[in-house]
């Protein structure tokens, strides 16, 4: 894998944008201005970016309740997302979605999903459409270690295998489904990829806190799927830095666990060390990106705060395209 300077800077920018978006939300939520459930993606950035950076705008992704990272990686407008999370009229979904249902069809982001396991079959549908359209596009679904236990996920995997469509199952194992550990809830000795193999799919495994490892594994996978070999799966071992949702006291964490994963499993730190060590980018290059990202997030929050609330008279608009 040879990423050029622009690609490296772009990947770093997107990972950093996700991180800072989430770090800022973590603070903003304490003010009480943002309602509902917000599930932060911080810690898992290398997965979203390592994968979405290799997709085109016409490839489709289907996301989860923890969707901010997938959105940003696939190219959703960061300011539109922030407005959406604030429930504003200018939000990507006019304030109707909030954090949990953000979608932007124009960039091939078919939606975050409040229903765990709700998305996997939809990626198979996207893959069916992609095969008919014949342009080598794929449908990608992200599922957690919790979602991998849902019947819809199994059904989707089998459907993809028997129809041999270009569907990609990305399993992000952050080791928790809400407050329950994967050691308890995932029956296949914590090996989710083996389930995909059980359904007859080729599967890859990678360290999801390492951008380069994730990227390289997905390059192979994508080549395989785009070549018409049918569906494939990848399991990424990753970490979530915050609670399941904002407000979660996280009593299930081990002593020092959060400090440890921040110190040892930080995809941004690892990226910086790698690219500066190999003299591909300098610290100054990356610091400049950091500053731009922080400024963008600052603007996004300010604009979201200043944006209007949706007009209550529109509450029942957009239920149908046409209703007669």
């Amino acid at each position, binding site marked *: 894998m040879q990423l050029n300077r622009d690609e490296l800077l772009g990947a770093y920018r997107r990972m950093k944008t996700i991180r800072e978006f989430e770090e800022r939300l973590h603070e903003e939520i304490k003010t009480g201005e943002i*309602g*509902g*459930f917000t599930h932060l993606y911080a810690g898992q950035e290398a997965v979203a970016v390592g994968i979405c950076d290799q997709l085109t705008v016409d490839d489709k992704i289907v996301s989860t309740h923890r969707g901010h990272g997938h959105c940003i990686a696939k190219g959703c407008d960061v300011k539109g997302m922030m407005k959406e999370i604030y*429930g*504003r009229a200018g*939000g990507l979904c006019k*304030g*109707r*979605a*909030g954090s*949990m*249902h953000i979608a932007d069809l124009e960039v091939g982001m078919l939606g975050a*999903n*409040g*229903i*765990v*396991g*709700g998305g996997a079959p939809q990626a198979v549908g996207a893959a069916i459409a992609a095969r008919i359209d014949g342009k080598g596009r794929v449908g990608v679904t992200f599922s957690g270690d*919790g*979602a991998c*236990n*849902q*019947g*819809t996920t199994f059904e989707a995997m089998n459907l993809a295998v028997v129809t041999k469509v270009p569907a990609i199952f990305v399993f992000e194992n952050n080791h*928790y*489904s*809400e*407050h*329950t*550990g*994967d*050691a*308890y*809830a*995932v029956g296949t000795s914590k090996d989710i990829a083996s389930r995909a193999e059980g359904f007859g799919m080729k599967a890859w495994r990678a360290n999801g806190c390492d951008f380069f490892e994730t990227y390289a594994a997905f390059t192979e996978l994508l080549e395989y799927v785009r070549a018409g070999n049918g569906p494939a799966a990848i399991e990424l071992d990753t970490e979530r830095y915050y609670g399941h949702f904002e407000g979660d006291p996280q*009593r*299930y*964490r*081990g*002593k020092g*666990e959060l400090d440890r994963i921040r110190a040892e499993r930080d995809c941004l730190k690892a990226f910086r060390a790698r690219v500066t060590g190999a003299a591909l980018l300098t610290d100054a290059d990356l610091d400049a990106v950091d500053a731009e990202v922080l400024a963008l997030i600052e603007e996004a929050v300010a604009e979201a705060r200043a944006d209007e*609330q*949706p007009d*209550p*008279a*529109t*509450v*029942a608009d957009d*239920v149908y395209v046409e209703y007669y």
Partner: protein
Amino acid sequence: MAIMNIREAIVSTLHAEMERDSDIILLGEDVVGGNGTAGGPEAIGGIWGTSPGLWKKFGPERVIDTPISESAIIGAAAGAALSGKRPVAELMFADFVGVSLDQIWNQMAKFRYMFGGKTKCPAVVRLVYGAGMQTAAQHSQSVYAMLTAMPGLKVVLPTTPADAKGLLTEALRGDDPVMFFEHKTLYGVKGEVPEGDHRQRFGEARVVREGGDVTVVACGRMVNFSEKAADAVAKDGIGIDLLDLRTTSPLDEDAILESVEQTGRLVVVDESPPRCSLAADIAAMVTERAFTSLKAPPAMVTAPHSPIPFARNLERAWVPSPQKIEEAVRRVLAFR
């Protein structure tokens, strides 16, 4: 009498009933919490705090944390109920009925009838429902009307701690499948709860107020909103008969009809869209059975025909409000 909130009433009833009857088991996502983590089991005790202490007291055979698999949770409850146990299955959000509907609707609800009355299915499904916390389109719905429409299910919606205890006890001692709805904004509602054995029969509406001018029928959180509306119109000397249905299946038709025969005016309040709703069901029943008593067309106060939006002000616009109930009361009174 003890003072407690609805959450505490549910927890203490589960403890008491599981102690009394060793056939009662509990299963659901994170009902223990912390399994397979460094924090260890019962680091949580249910995300709504409705099952603390149960795992410690009754052990992992009776208190079962499940993976995220709603079809299997409800299906396992159905099978355990057919096998002599009394399962309580928790759906963390009532919206997840969508994931597990077959096991509720085609299985649990129909066993007794399909099998010629030879079996019973004493399962209780606890469903956390309702809007008001900006949990948006897939975590806020009040799906009681849909389940009320399914023959074979009993549908229960406590609004007070006393009823939470009485209705849950009744559900756990009865032999039919019960859908037990807990409104996510009502867990903290406090009140007196009778000590010892307390059962509240299903199909007996609670008379919240007797005022004589307009009959208001509500369930769940809409009972509290209707009380606010009743306070508002009381200032103008308007008296409300307010009925809290407690259960929508069975439905206390007599209580509704008796009140409407006195008042001649009906307002039905329902936290859901209007089509095929509980409001429509009751308005139709009253129109058919008490037509000659009616002095005004029944009024339905419902949400609009739309999913539930996220934004705070949109969600407020969606949920029936005390103001809308008040307007409906004044409208049916003004009808000549």
